[in-house]
């Protein structure tokens, strides 16, 4: 089975099958990361744009790096840019009243976690999501975020403390 790094080299040469193979390997993880980072808004667009950037930049991929960290770095940069955009116009409550929650309505526990994660500052949230949900090591998270390992460690500590404090406040 070809490695991710071999596949991205084939992508650089214009191999469509290699893109499909990489999508198969990372679609769930990448989509989940973007979903949690953005709280579920514009995920599909960000997901598509991430893969298009991968294809565009494939020729510049540094073979000494891991593909997964490079992929998450691209996704994170796009998501950060998205985060800087102004939020969408608030929905008129009068319009929202008639909206019936569809089958995609999330369970309460998921909503709680989503709300907790959304309250974390961006730097802590990205470090926490990558470490907690994607099982990346502190070194890999540091590489993706472009900061020292100690900074990742401290962001994780702060995120954990903040999440507990927020959960307590919600309970109270």
């Amino acid at each position, binding site marked *: 089975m070809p490695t991710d790094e071999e596949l991205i080299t084939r992508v650089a040469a*214009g191999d469509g099958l290699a893109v499909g193979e990489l999508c198969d390997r990372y679609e769930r993880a990448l989509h989940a990361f973007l979903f949690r980072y953005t709280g579920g808004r514009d995920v599909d667009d960000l997901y598509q744009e991430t893969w298009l950037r991968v294809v565009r930049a*494939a020729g510049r991929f540094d073979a000494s790096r891991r593909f997964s960290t490079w992929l998450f770095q691209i996704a994170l940069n796009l998501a950060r840019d998205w985060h800087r955009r102004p939020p969408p116009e608030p929905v008129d409550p009068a319009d929202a009243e008639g909206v019936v929650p569809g089958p995609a309505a999330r369970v309460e526990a998921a909503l709680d976690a989503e709300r907790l994660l959304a309250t974390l500052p961006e730097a802590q949230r990205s470090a926490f999501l990558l470490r907690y949900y994607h099982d990346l090591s502190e070194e890999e998270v540091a590489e993706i975020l472009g900061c020292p390992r100690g900074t990742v460690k401290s962001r994780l500590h702060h995120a954990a403390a903040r999440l507990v404090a927020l959960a307590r406040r919600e309970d109270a």
Partner: protein
Amino acid sequence: MGCEDVRTSLMLGLALDDGAARHVTMCTSCRAEAPAVRAVAAALAAHRAPAPSQALRARVLDAAAPLLDRRARAVITPDWGAVARALGAALLPLPLIALAQGYVVNLLYRVLTTLLPGPVGAYLVFNYVALVALLATITYAAIPVVAARQAEARHA
């Protein structure tokens, strides 16, 4: 392992080593915090993200197809024309640059050998010439590389 490490490990669901497990039982503060940390960890673990749809996968591959096509063509035929044009444009002002540098070196040599002992002045001028030559070499060597990359980026 300190309190912060233990609590973060608990929240991340990492296996606690003997020392950390002992810490949780011994430290009053961590013992008090542990249930809240575990509750948050459980809520986070229950947070499921939806999988991307097959339609999204197809959309991505469709959007990537023209980019891949251009990539394949770019690999087969590197844009040597763009590289040659960039080199030509960069070499065009070279005689003028050489002339200006010759004038500067000449002036520098005259001033330095007047102010300083002859060999010291000559040594400083030689250093200046070597530095300029090195910078020029690096700059001109980079031109084909940069031009090729730019051509590739335009194709992508």
